[in-house]
């Protein structure tokens, strides 16, 4: 994936989140404060509007900074800062190996800044398994990523707003895990290991 394709993918996430707003809002109404759909939509509308062409590093950094300032709560800063950190390792042509490296940075950033580990029913449950998914399967298909999000359904949340629901958080996919599916899918488009 070169810079042009990356920009197209980042801009394209606007229409993805326009379409998925209702789905994410529905999940977040079940086990959160109901604003995740609107937040993601707002964030990527801003990315679509503000991020212009440049190197892959510049595009990722601008995307991150835009997400950090336009999405409230924890998800915007976490996604945003992860993009900023991923920009530091991105090559001008993002191939499978480079994407694995980026996804590992994504994993570390969210773990460290969100103080989260696997199994807590968060975006991290998708992010932390995506590098291995790419290694094993050779690409990041929507179906495989969705499977990772589905696995959060039976988890009990111990982080974020959903943690207040304790046992009642079971049975719903974590909204952050669901949005991570779309973001990682966009990063992996056309990249093969």
């Amino acid at each position, binding site marked *: 994936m070169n810079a042009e394709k990356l920009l197209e993918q980042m801009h394209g996430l606007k229409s993805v989140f326009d379409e998925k707003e209702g789905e994410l809002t529905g999940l977040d109404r079940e086990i959160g404060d109901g604003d995740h759909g609107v937040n993601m939509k707002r964030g990527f509308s801003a990315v679509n509007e503000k991020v212009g062409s440049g190197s892959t590093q510049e595009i990722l950094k601008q995307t991150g900074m835009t997400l950090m300032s336009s999405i*409230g*709560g924890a998800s915007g800063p976490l996604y945003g800062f992860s993009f*900023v950190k991923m920009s530091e390792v991105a090559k001008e042509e993002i191939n499978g190996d480079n994407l694995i490296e980026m996804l590992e940075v994504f994993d570390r950033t969210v773990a460290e*800044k969100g103080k989260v580990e696997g199994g807590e029913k968060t975006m991290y449950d998708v992010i932390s398994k995506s590098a291995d998914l790419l290694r094993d399967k050779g690409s990041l298909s929507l179906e495989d990523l969705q499977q990772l999000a589905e696995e959060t359904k039976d988890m009990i949340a111990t982080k974020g707003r959903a943690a207040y629901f304790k046992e009642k958080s079971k049975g719903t996919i974590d909204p952050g895990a669901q949005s991570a599916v779309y973001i990682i899918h966009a990063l992996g488009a056309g990249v093969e290991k």
Partner: protein
Amino acid sequence: MTEILIISHSSEIAQGTRALVSQMAGDTIIHASGGVDGGIGTNIDQINDMIGKIGSDTICFYDIGSSRMNLEMAVEMYDGEHKLHISEAPIVEGAFLAAVENSVGSSTEAILEKLDTMKK
């Protein structure tokens, strides 16, 4: 001289803390900001704005939840010449102690040591 930075979810908490602290330590530089778009929240931009204005080593205080995360990220992205320290002390008491200590001439390190004994 050490400067103080306060980030809160609420504009009133940020400004109120600054007013309270300034009463005792009027010569200490205090950067304070809180709330987003007239409502409750924190955001990286407002922290970056404050960090852009610091003139010496600074101790930063935060209130709850995502304000710490935003503060950590802003501090990590800072590439200026001054040292930024994040204190885990409660926002009002911590800022108060730091400002008073600063006004009586304590070093940044000495202030940080005292702050370490305070718990949220």
